[in-house]
């Protein structure tokens, strides 16, 4: 199946209305290479790949395969030309088996178009054996772990004899260990002659596996880089200015413990204990980061604290006051600031103006309200101040919040939540889908809030972010606390914890626990006085 295939994009331009997503992009993918597309969220990487895969039609430019121009009217054409794609959000039918998913669209058939799934099964076995995938063709996809689902996607491409495999942010949903496995698979694929286009914004992975790096910024190719280039250089190429990747934050000076969660259990509508007997606490002036692979109860934990979940038992105490059973309004009034994980859905009202969004939680209080009327002048004044303070890039305070970019929307939500005196600050995925430049800013603000003496809880699935911000790290797995470990705990240890293995079972890891005197702290009741 080794068919040498050179892929070239020449002058690809893609417009969505007035938005220029790709601007005359030139790119050559040499056969048998891992070619990385590096760029921030929203730089136009995924758009470019969707053009290449036939999902979007380019506004200008052409695609050449082995120096011959081709045009794709749909993904079917792209696949026929030997291009396969693994999307960021998997394109698998959850209620189908692996074999049905692999067969779909290119079904081997017997007479009269009856399905021949046996043929597909044996193909899956073949590929599985070749790359050591261990995939059961008859398993239902929805029952498979994310890492295995990703392999099913790769099999889907290989079954169609893909010579060029596009991987769109493939590591976003993986634990560190799964990421390493994926990088190995990529190397194997390369060795067997498949070229790979690897889309990522995670510099560590990019440097580890790429042969060539093309950096894209705001829809344009800004240059190519050598994988040996330094992380700082790559980052500044990606962002367009010098960025400091290391957050200089002073060591935490935790004060008294004011936030306590005891035996918190949240039961989902389907009866699952999505948060299961969880206990933790945060001191004033300390950041506790809650790590874990997405979907292990983090969302429900934060929602339970805020009063958004219905079936909650246990206790959540802030400054000695019980929060469980209170309304959201009462919780907010107790001084809780909350940045939800999906800002567009839960964090702001897209059709409201920036100024209105900035007072969503304060509109009924003076100085913004007087009796039953609101005071537009005060709301505008407030908006101008916050926009300046948080560097929200918006045409005006009256612009609809939905028109801002992701990073600016996030700054907007953060500006609102941090604009009043807080007793607890919770931020869920504070920098998801935010450009590197804004990440730096948002992180500084979070640390500043800590330094003012607020207990801070950060929920993040990005291990880099957790390691950067945290003073202590709590890892969740299937709704249970796997353990609380000090900042500086190694990636490997955290990765295993994210897979549900408690720290004491692998506590001999050499790098673990540089920060604290002890290697690990026991599960579920890490004492408040433990921090250095």
């Amino acid at each position, binding site marked *: 199946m080794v068919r040498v295939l050179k892929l070239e994009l020449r002058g690809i331009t893609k417009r969505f209305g007035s938005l220029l997503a790709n601007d005359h992009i030139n790119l050559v993918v040499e056969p048998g290479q891992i070619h990385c597309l590096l760029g921030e969220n929203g730089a136009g990487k995924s758009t470019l790949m969707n053009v290449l895969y036939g999902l979007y039609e380019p506004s200008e430019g052409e695609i050449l395969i082995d120096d011959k121009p081709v045009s794709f009217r749909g*993904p079917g054409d792209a696949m026929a030309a030997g291009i396969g794609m693994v999307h960021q959000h998997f394109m698998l*039918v959850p209620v189908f088996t692996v074999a049905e998913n692999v067969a779909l669209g290119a079904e081997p058939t017997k007479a009269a178009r009856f399905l021949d799934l046996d043929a597909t099964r044996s193909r899956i076995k073949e590929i599985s054996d070749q790359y050591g995938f261990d995939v059961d063709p008859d398993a239902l996809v929805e029952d498979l772990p994310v890492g295995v689902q990703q392999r099913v996607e790769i099999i889907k491409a290989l079954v169609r004899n893909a010579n060029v495999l596009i991987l769109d942010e493939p590591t976003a949903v993986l634990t560190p260990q799964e990421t390493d496995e994926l990088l190995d698979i990529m190397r194997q694929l390369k060795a067997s002659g498949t070229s790979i286009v690897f889309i990522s914004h995670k510099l560590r992975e990019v440097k580890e596996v790429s042969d060539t790096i093309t950096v894209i910024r705001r829809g344009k190719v800004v240059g190519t880089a050598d994988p040996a280039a330094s992380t700082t250089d790559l980052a500044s190429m990606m962002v367009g200015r010098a960025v400091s990747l290391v957050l200089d934050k002073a060591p935490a000076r935790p004060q008294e413990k004011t936030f306590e969660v005891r035996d918190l259990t949240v039961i989902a509508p389907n009866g699952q204990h999505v948060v299961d007997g969880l206990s933790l606490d945060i001191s004033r002036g300390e950041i506790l980061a809650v790590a874990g692979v997405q979907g292990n109860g983090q969302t429900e934990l934060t929602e339970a604290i805020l009063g958004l979940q219905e079936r909650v038992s246990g206790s959540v105490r802030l400054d000695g006051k019980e929060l469980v059973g209170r309304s959201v309004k009462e919780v907010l009034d107790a001084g809780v600031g909350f940045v939800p994980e999906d800002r567009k859905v839960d964090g702001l009202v897209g059709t409201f103006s920036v100024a209105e969004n900035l007072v969503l939680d304060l509109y009924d209080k003076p100085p913004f309200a007087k009796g039953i009327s609101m005071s537009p002048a005060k709301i505008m004044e407030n908006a101008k101040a916050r926009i300046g303070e948080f560097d929200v890039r918006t045409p005006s305070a009256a612009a609809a919040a939905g028109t801002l970019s992701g990073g600016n929307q996030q700054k907007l939500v953060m500006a609102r939540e941090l604009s009043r005196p807080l007793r607890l600050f919770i931020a869920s995925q504070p920098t998801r889908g935010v450009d590197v430049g804004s990440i730096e800013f948002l992180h500084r603000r979070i640390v500043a809030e800590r330094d003012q003496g607020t207990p801070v809880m950060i929920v993040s699935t990005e291990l880099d972010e957790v390691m950067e911000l945290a003073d202590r790290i709590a890892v969740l*797995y299937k709704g249970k606390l796997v353990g609380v470990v000090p900042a500086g705990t190694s990636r490997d240890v955290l990765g295993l914890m994210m897979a549900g293995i408690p720290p004491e079972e692998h506590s001999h890891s050499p790098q673990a626990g540089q920060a604290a005197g002890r290697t690990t702290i026991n599960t579920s009741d890490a004492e408040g006085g433990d921090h250095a």
Partner: protein
Amino acid sequence: MSTTVSSSKPGKPQPGGKGPDTRAAAVSAKPVTWKTPVLLTAFGLVALVFFGLLAPTQTASFGISTGSDFFQLPAVEVNAFAGGLVLSILLLGLSGYAVYLKTKDRHVPGWLTVAFIVLFTAAFLIWVVGGARTPSISLAGLIAGSVTLAVPLVFGSLSGVLCERVGVVNIAIEGQLLGGAFTAAIVASVTQNPLIGLLAAAVAGAVVSMVLALFSIKYLVNQIIVGVVLNVLVSGVTGFLFSTVMQEDSDRFNSPPGLDAIEIPVLSGIPIIGPILFRQSLVGYLMYIAVLVVWVGLFKTRWGLRVRAVGEHPQAADTLGINVNATRFWNVTLGGAVAGIGGSFFTLVAIDSFTKEISGGRGFIALAALIFGRWNPIGAFFAALLFGFADNLQSIVTIIGTPVPSQFMAMLPYLVTVLAVAGLVGKSRGPAASGIPYVKG
């Protein structure tokens, strides 16, 4: 998020409905609830009190054979009091077992629910017949009549299966049935050929469906609203044409030649089974064929795999080069044609003329059968049979004269529908993308 209830996996809280974690093992951990045991116990007690303790003392007689069978079986005779008592104790035994299972934190198995329904129906029959003025009915007639009444329901629910499996909610089944009935009547009357009428009915159903498809797929109008509007539209148009055209000259426009029952020699003489399987009209035979063809098509062929993929995850289908909206359009059209054939049953088989609102809400019962049958053609077929049975029982029981007011008996089919859809089957999961228009990008 409450709609993801049935996905039921440990440690998979589904934030925002996507991004599954999935380290979770493949264990189905649907919580064991009290619902089924409690419902069963309640019905068991009702059976004990009414069918057992308050039972009439007559002997109920159930005829098994009809005159045309090639051998005769004697009628089954049951003392209503004894029969009711025995059956209701059996029922309580079953519900007791369900309660026991719940205390052991185990699910109530499907066979138990089915057995309960069968026994309860039997007890109910004995009670009703035993209390009637003439305590005797023909069981064979009851069952054969049920199948007959179920024919339009089966076609209607097959139409629903074809549409929902591809991701379009078809509320317009009622309109498709009615359109089919009207067109079959007028075309068969004018051409004096019932086969042409049957064909025209399919076309009429397809046309109604195409309007649904066009508006919901191309113009992204809410599918429920288009469906409801279509029902009203078809009802208005056929009602208008009925009173202006058909009634003016009913000899010419509203006296279609019927499709008579075709008897298959010998086989049609088998007691009970014979009349059901081998003494049907053309539409009846088509029904059996359609159920099988749709089932095989959906689950065994390339077409079916693609259809189901489009209904579950249209984006995934799109990235594999399947044209989502074209697949939807043609499937919905096909569904309409199937429902149209079902509509022709009213005017070509059941009654030899069209009247206003002849479909009488059966399109909605078909919708219920679709859900009760869990979006599966064979499941929908049996669900439709159950509703047909309730319908037929109601009319037979009214004829033999029961102590129960006929109005209550008339409620029976709908009561069964509500109970079936709401309660006993548990939560069933329809196609994930049903009702959601697909917009590229």
